[in-house]
């Protein structure tokens, strides 16, 4: 026989809000729906309920009872992410889960005796329900850790499990085959809280589910129609609806609607940090890391702003993601106050490094990706990477690609012996100079008074002095078919002031430049 566990988060709109704003826990908080004086309470925290505030009151009525009452509007984004979090908790315990919406999830828990048998509590006489109690307690604990106070009911059908989960003393385990006996003493409102048919049954004097179940099915069906027949089946604990397994979503979402629109960055980042932290924890539970992060901003009064951040490698580092978001928002501001936001993380498997006993230690791919992302945010993504050679002869040529190092060798190698090579320090961009000629020979180099175009206010390096020895010219001609062909005459020069340089003259314009220093 199938066994179904129902997870139910009581006062779901309130629980979802408290999950997003944990600092409100313990306060007198109500969730309201509607605007102005028409706003009415749909859920109240325990402290507010103690002050006799209950669902259905208008907000002014509630405030009259408790002036310091904290009121929050119902937040669809919060509820959606909380529902996802609830489903992810359910997935930890069973691969077959159903999303029943509004803080409810069903799990197929058949055949889990071996997984949740608690040696300390279970004895042979206690029967098969004991492992289900252990399982239900584990679910309640996991959900509580994730900030969602949850009740659990386990029965043979979704209906009975759901009703069991609604009862206050959680967990409630309905033994197999005893669904109708479990339902019989419960009031009829548990079965049909909002149906108009309940009034008709009330007039007949039917108060409990058991009284309805004892009526003849055909008589109920002839008077109340198909709805009545289905209700009669439900009252007998018969629920033919199978569990509909949900497909895991391809992405993780977190977000919330803000109480007040935000116009500055810091308060937004403060809230975003908490949301990213929740997102990272959810991904960690499933063994995922974020490969791409999308941010959707809801703007005031209307409109949206969306942006995406591609991460160099899957990561769960909140600090890195927050830094990238900060830089993205600073570079391109939304242009309007932010009234809500939503993060969408595209998951990927995090990379793992193989540890080596005798070889060089490999860098942790996760840490490396985080560092590269932070460096890219700090100095620019085109300034971090692996150097690669480029075909050609122009000395200034280079390319930089994303850093993806190969694994280290299994055994440490001996370092390659140096050949004592003299390297050239490339000067990018080349330093323009004036070269004085005497006859056909180079005589001296003088700095050229030119404006510094780098824009960072830095001073240009100064190269001057008479030329002690010059070697050249060496001709370099490349890319004559391009818009900017390279057509130069090169010299190696040693200056009296110190320094050995590589200088060239552009054949076309005739200007002199220093593009390298032997160092």
């Amino acid at each position, binding site marked *: 026989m199938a066994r179904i566990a129902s997870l139910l988060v009581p006062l779901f709109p309130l629980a979802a809000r408290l999950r997003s704003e944990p600092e409100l826990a313990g306060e007198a908080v109500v969730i309201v729906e509607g605007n102005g004086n028409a706003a009415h309470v749909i859920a109240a925290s325990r402290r507010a309920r103690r002050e006799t505030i209950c669902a259905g009151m208008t907000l002014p009525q509630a405030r009259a009872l408790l002036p310091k009452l904290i009121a929050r509007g119902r937040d669809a984004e919060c509820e959606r992410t909380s529902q996802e979090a609830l489903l992810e908790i359910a997935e930890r315990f069973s691969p077959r889960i159903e999303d029943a919406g509004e803080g409810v999830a069903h799990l197929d828990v058949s055949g889990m005796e071996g997984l949740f048998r608690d040696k300390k509590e279970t004895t042979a006489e206690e029967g098969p329900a004991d492992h289900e109690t252990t399982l239900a307690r584990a679910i309640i604990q996991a959900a509580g850790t994730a900030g969602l106070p949850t009740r659990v009911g386990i029965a043979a059908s979704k209906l009975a499990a759901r009703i069991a989960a609604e009862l206050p003393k959680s967990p409630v385990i309905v033994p197999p085959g005893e669904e109708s006996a479990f339902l019989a003493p419960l009031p009829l409102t548990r079965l049909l809280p909002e149906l108009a048919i309940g009034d008709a049954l009330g007039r007949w004097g039917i108060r409990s589910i058991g009284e309805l179940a004892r009526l003849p099915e055909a008589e109920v069906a002839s008077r109340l129609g198909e709805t009545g027949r289905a209700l009669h089946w439900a009252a007998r604990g018969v629920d033919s609806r199978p569990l509909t397994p949900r497909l895991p979503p391809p992405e993780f979402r977190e977000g919330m609607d803000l109480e007040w629109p935000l116009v500055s960055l810091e308060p937004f980042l403060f809230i975003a940090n908490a949301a990213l932290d929740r997102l990272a924890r959810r991904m960690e539970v499933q063994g995922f890391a974020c490969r791409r992060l999308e941010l959707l901003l809801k703007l005031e009064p209307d409109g949206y702003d969306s942006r995406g951040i591609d991460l160099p490698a899957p990561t769960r580092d909140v600090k890195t993601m927050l830094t990238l978001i900060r830089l993205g928002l600073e570079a391109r501001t939304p242009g309007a106050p932010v009234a809500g936001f939503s993060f969408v993380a595209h998951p990927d498997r995090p990379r793992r490094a193989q540890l080596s*006993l005798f070889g060089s230690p490999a860098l942790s791919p996760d840490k490396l990706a985080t*560092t*590269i992302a932070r460096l890219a945010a700090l100095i620019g993504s085109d*300034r971090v990477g692996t*150097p690669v050679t480029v075909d050609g002869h122009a*000395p200034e040529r280079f390319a930089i690609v994303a850093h993806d190092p190969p694994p280290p060798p299994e055994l440490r190698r001996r370092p*390659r012996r*140096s050949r004592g090579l003299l390297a050239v320090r490339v000067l990018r961009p080349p330093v323009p100079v004036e070269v004085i000629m005497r006859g056909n020979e180079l005589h001296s180099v003088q700095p050229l008074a030119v404006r510094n175009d780098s824009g*960072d206010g830095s*001073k240009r390096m100064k190269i001057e002095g008479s030329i002690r020895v010059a070697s050249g010219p060496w001709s370099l001609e490349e890319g004559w078919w391009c818009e900017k062909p390279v057509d130069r005459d090169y010299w190696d020069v040693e200056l009296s002031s110190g320094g050995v340089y590589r200088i060239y003259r552009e054949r076309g314009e005739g200007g002199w430049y220093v593009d390298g220093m032997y160092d």
Partner: protein
Amino acid sequence: MITATPLDLRLVTAYVIGTSSLLLPVESLMSSALLFQMPLLPRETRPPADSETEITPPLRDDLARLRASLAPELAARISSASELARTLQRRRRDEAIPTTIPEVDRLLEGGLPRGRLIEIAARRSTGRFSIALSTVASATSSGDAAAFIDLGDHLDPSALEIAGAELSRVLWIRPRTVKEAVTSAELLIATGFPLVVAELGVHPLPGRRVAEASWVRLARAAEGHGAALLVCSPYPISGTISEAVISGQRGRAAWQGEKKTPRLLTGLSTTLRLEKHRHRKAGDAVMLRLLMKEVIR
């Protein structure tokens, strides 16, 4: 009398560490034991297979018993896997990363010590950049990762490849200011790079001078993570925190050809001097000769 099988020895996970730092496998130990007719583990000391929690203590006892049963010189060379891992890690931290330029390695007594900041402060054309490239080539050719922080954007990837580096193991950072360079170095050290080379370019350095506290923090980070940090700058910049400071005298170019005959640059010779060392007397000097690749060919 020998009562153990090779399987019993494998349970002990024993290795013999030779003086050449390489390992001899279990079979060698077995053959050594056979050779010396040493009593080995009795079979009944094998730990019960069904209890994972009880494996460690009996194994430790087995190892102690095995050591006690062997000759002292052989027993001293037996190590458990965890001891071996610790020894190798310790040895790795004590190793220096050679620059593979004999003159520089002689000044630094083997190369760049891990966990220390070494500074080369030298002006133009003193071989500073060549030493930096050679160090990166040395680390990457042995399989280590290396980070090259290039403040002046001076690196030619083909020059690094010719120097012998595996470019795929090099992370090239091109900061704009000294502050960015120092921040980058700190991040890279914390990531676990065993070698970080901060090449600060030529005078004048872009951006403001960073506080000495930043270098102290950087040196502490290198010490904490066992990274070798080489700072190459045109003048002493890291203050008192460095392990050693090497200065370079103005280099003289070597030319082929005389007077009116065509000249050809063949290399550069310069004098390197140990200005400071925490554990040695400073003042040693070496003559460094670097050659053009065309001459070497």
